[in-house]
C-alpha cells in the first residue's frame, strides 16, 4: 500500500540527480549515463501512474522509451567514439566550436 506520491518523489529525486549529472560532469560518457538515468526516472513515473489508473498505455510508452533509448545510446556512443578519434578527448568542454 504505497501512495503513488512516493513513487513520484523517488522519480523526481532520480530525475534531478540525472539532470545534475548532465550539468556538472564533463565526461561525455557520464553525461550520457545521466541522461539514461533521467529516462529511467520518467519510466518509473509512467509505470506508477499506469498502475494507478489501471491502464496499460503507460507501460507501452515505457516499452517505446526503452526502444528509443537503445537506439539513442547506439548512435550516441558511436558519435562519442567518432569524436574521440578525431579529438582524442571526450571532455565536453573541449568541444566548443559553437562559440558565438
Amino acid at each position, binding site marked *: 500500500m504505497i501512495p503513488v506520491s512516493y513513487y513520484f518523489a523517488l522519480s523526481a529525486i532520480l*530525475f534531478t540527480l540525472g539532470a545534475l549529472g548532465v550539468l556538472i*560532469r564533463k565526461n561525455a560518457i557520464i553525461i550520457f549515463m545521466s541522461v539514461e538515468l533521467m529516462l529511467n526516472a520518467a519510466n518509473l513515473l509512467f509505470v506508477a501512474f499506469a498502475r*494507478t489508473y489501471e491502464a496499460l498505455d503507460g507501460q507501452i510508452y515505457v516499452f517505446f522509451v526503452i*526502444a528509443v533509448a537503445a537506439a539513442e545510446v547506439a548512435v550516441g556512443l558511436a558519435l562519442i567514439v567518432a569524436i574521440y578519434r578525431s579529438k582524442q578527448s571526450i571532455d565536453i568542454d573541449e568541444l566548443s566550436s559553437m562559440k558565438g
Partner: protein
Amino acid sequence: MTPDLLIFFSLATVAVAAAIGMLLSRNAVYSALFLILNFATVAVFFLMLGAPFIAMAQVAVYAGAIMVLFLFVIMLLGAEELGSEGKGGWQRPVAVFLALALLAESAYLIFQRGDLVSMIQPAESGYANPQAIGEVLFSEFLLPFEVTSVLLLAAMVGVIVLTKEQKKKGKDAK
C-alpha cells in the same frame, strides 16, 4: 510501517544512493556499475507495480545490453578517468541551485495535488502480464511499433555510417 513500505524505502535508498554514486564517482567504470545497480532496483520497483514485462525488459535491455555497450565504449576508449573535472566555474552552484528548485517544485506539487495520494492497489491477476501487453502492442499500437523498428534500423545504419566515415579518414591520414 508495513512490509511494503519497508521494501520501498530500502530499495529507494539503494536507488538514490546508486544514482549519487554514479554522479560522484571519478571512475567511469564505477559510474556505469552504479547505474546498473540503480536500474536493477528500478526493475524491482516495476515488479512491485505489476509490470513484470517492463521489469524484464529493463533488466535485459537497460542493465544488460545498454550498459554493457557503455562499458565496452569506456574500455575501448580507455576513458575510465579522463581529465580532471576541475572547477565548473559558476556553472556548478547554479546547477545545484536549479536542481534544488526543481525538487522544491516537485515537492510542492506532490503535497498540493490531492490526487497523488491515492494508494496503489494490489494488482489483479491478469493485469499487465506479457500477453496483455502483447495484445495491446500488436493491435492498438501496431503502427508506432513498426515505426520503432524503422527507427532502430535507421540507428543501425547511422552507426555503421559513422564508423565507416571514421575508417576512411584514417586511410586518408595515412
